[in-house]
């Protein structure tokens, strides 16, 4: 799982075929696909999603009931530090969590009104790479090293569309041209190692776009790339999103990238969403102490010289076992006894702006 391996490093078994990644939680209605009329306008609606990893050291509570939604054509950014559950949160949508040890133990994921957690393998495969596509973090390891780019793109196309091999190849050429790969017809026969990191990520993007998805999940797609290449990829995704009207979930720990790209931001901490707001609102009026800490820890161009970079004191909590109270309380300078006893839930403080904090008014006044 690339950089996110921290959580799964204690896997009791490295032996997994990846089948059946969803738990048999009895509370979930299985085998039924029922549209939810009330949610028809939302493209994706995640409700109270819980994912755990059953490791030899104990149960890691990677996701502790997160809820969020994505509208058609919207770009939602999920930010947070390593191990906060960002990647697990989005990989759970397509049940791509390594299992064992990972298991989705509760919640629901409605995509266009259909609960993805109730789908059988075949129906899920139709969604994977079709209506929902993923761009992974590390383009160096996310492409098969011994398979030509052409085969890797066309297998995605042919899994979802009734095209001949020749037609699929022609489409692959168009896709490579669209993501800005020079001489695409020639490059199609190359292997991944013949591409640079940025070019490989373009190939990944071309692959993700191949079946005109309505939602693209981008899991830190620029983290492994140079800064200049990062900027190119961000611009590319922005352009394609505007042209194709695709919704994007963009995972990042880079608040600079998020500011340029996202419509809305969800901040994650220790497997919880602690704050969500439209991007301008979040940067202008952050309400959760953790969000404030994140924004303060950014280096600023307009800061006076010799000012020290601010950091959030302490370490993120260990997700092994159950946590009591607000997960951020041990590091929070506003924490009270209530924070240490009760975990706050998301509450709206302004239109579209929700925060999970008992003292958000206090923190905002002080920030």
């Amino acid at each position, binding site marked *: *799982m*690339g950089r996110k391996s921290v959580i799964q490093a204690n896997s009791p*078994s*490295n*032996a*997994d*075929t*990846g*089948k059946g990644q969803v738990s048999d939680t009895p509370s979930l209605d299985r085998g039924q696909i029922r549209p939810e009329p009330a949610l028809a306008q939302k493209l994706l609606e995640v409700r109270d999603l819980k994912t755990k990893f059953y490791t030899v050291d104990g149960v890691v509570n990677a996701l502790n009931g997160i809820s969020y939604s994505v509208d058609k054509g919207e770009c939602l950014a999920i930010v947070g530090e390593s191990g906060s559950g960002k990647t697990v949160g989005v990989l759970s949508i*397509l049940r*791509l969590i*390594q299992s064992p040890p990972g298991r989705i133990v509760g919640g629901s994921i409605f995509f266009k009104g259909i609960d993805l957690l109730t789908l059988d*393998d075949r129906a899920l*495969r*139709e*969604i*994977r*790479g*079709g209506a929902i*596509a*993923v761009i*992974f973090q*590390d383009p160096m*390891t*996310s*492409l*098969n*090293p*011994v*398979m030509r780019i052409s*085969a890797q793109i066309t*297998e*995605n196309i042919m*899994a*979802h569309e009734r095209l001949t091999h020749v037609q699929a190849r022609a489409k692959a050429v168009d896709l490579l041209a669209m993501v800005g790969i020079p001489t695409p017809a020639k490059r199609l026969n190359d*292997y991944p*190692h*013949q591409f640079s990191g940025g070019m490989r990520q373009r190939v*990944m993007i071309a*692959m993700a776009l191949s079946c005109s998805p309505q939602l693209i999940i981008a899991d830190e797609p620029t983290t492994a790339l140079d800064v200049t290449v990062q900027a190119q990829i961000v611009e590319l995704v922005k352009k394609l999103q505007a042209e194709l009207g695709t919704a994007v979930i963009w995972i990042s720990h880079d608040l600079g990238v998020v500011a340029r790209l996202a419509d809305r931001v969800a901040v994650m901490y220790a497997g919880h969403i602690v704050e969500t707001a439209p991007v301008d609102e979040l940067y202008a009026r952050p309400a959760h102490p953790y969000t404030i800490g994140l924004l303060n820890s950014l280096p600023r161009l307009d800061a006076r010289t010799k000012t020290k970079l601010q950091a959030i004191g302490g370490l993120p909590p260990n997700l092994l076992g159950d946590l009591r109270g607000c997960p951020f309380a041990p590091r929070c300078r506003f924490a009270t006894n209530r924070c240490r006893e009760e975990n706050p839930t998301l509450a709206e403080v302004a239109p579209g702006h929700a925060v999970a904090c008992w003292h958000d008014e206090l923190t905002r006044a002080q920030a």
Partner: protein
Amino acid sequence: MRFIIRRLLQSLIVVFGVSIIAFGMLFMTGDPTEILLGNGADHMTVAQIQDFRVKMGFDRPWYVQYASFVGKAVQGDFGYSFVRHEPAYEVIMDKMPATIQLASVAFVLSLLVSIPLGVLSAMRPHKPIDRIATVLALIGQSIPSFWLGILLILLFGVQLKWLPISGSGSWQHIIMPAITLAAFPIARNMRLTRSSMLDFMQRDFVRTARAKGISETRVVYAHVLRNSLLPLVTSIGLEAGFLLGGSVITETIFGWPGVGREIVSAIGSKDFNVVQAGVIMLALIFAGVNLIIDLAYSWIDPRIRYDT
């Protein structure tokens, strides 16, 4: 193309090394004149012995002798067999088809059994099929081939009388020696396939493949297995040598008329020219097979093809 030429040169170096060892064998055991004459020397005068030495060319410096040995060997001339009184090269090449036949059957058998079994195990780790395969692999790796051969003869040859116990000639003759010879490679390759598959299952690109919505079968065969073959090919290359040269015991047990058995009997009768011819011909085949394996490697892994 440069890759092929480089590998070809490396193979030549291997054969060169083997030729030195094969040539040196004659001298490592003492004065070749005395060895060749054996007890016959007791009835000869010193002058006669010296005559024989000069006739055989043993009085020349070793490098002159080596040069002459190589010069003849490249023309297929390894001298005469002292025992059979026919060219040593022909003695060996008469037996070569039988050895290659046995090695090929064992080789194909080992691949056909080990790879599917390894894949099955990796698909269901720690499930019954995996446990059974693991136990079988343990047995296959630890049983000495002479013992397995004898057990097979006892069961299928003596008790059940299904298969001939010795010799060659029909397809039934090759079954037991092939199984005996293949047991170890089957066990090793099965374990290698299993661990390699399990390793590659965890890779990022396998997750990418799953995210495309392709079938699990395609994920396993097109993505995981092809990558898993890389470490396996190295093992298979070594195995080819093992099957060709290491079949001495199996050939002896089953009376299989191959090169290995011929070399062993030639060593017993101090028929050095035959030993030299046998060792060098096996080395040539071994180098050739490894060359093919290297080329296969570059075919499976494009990174090797282009980086060199």
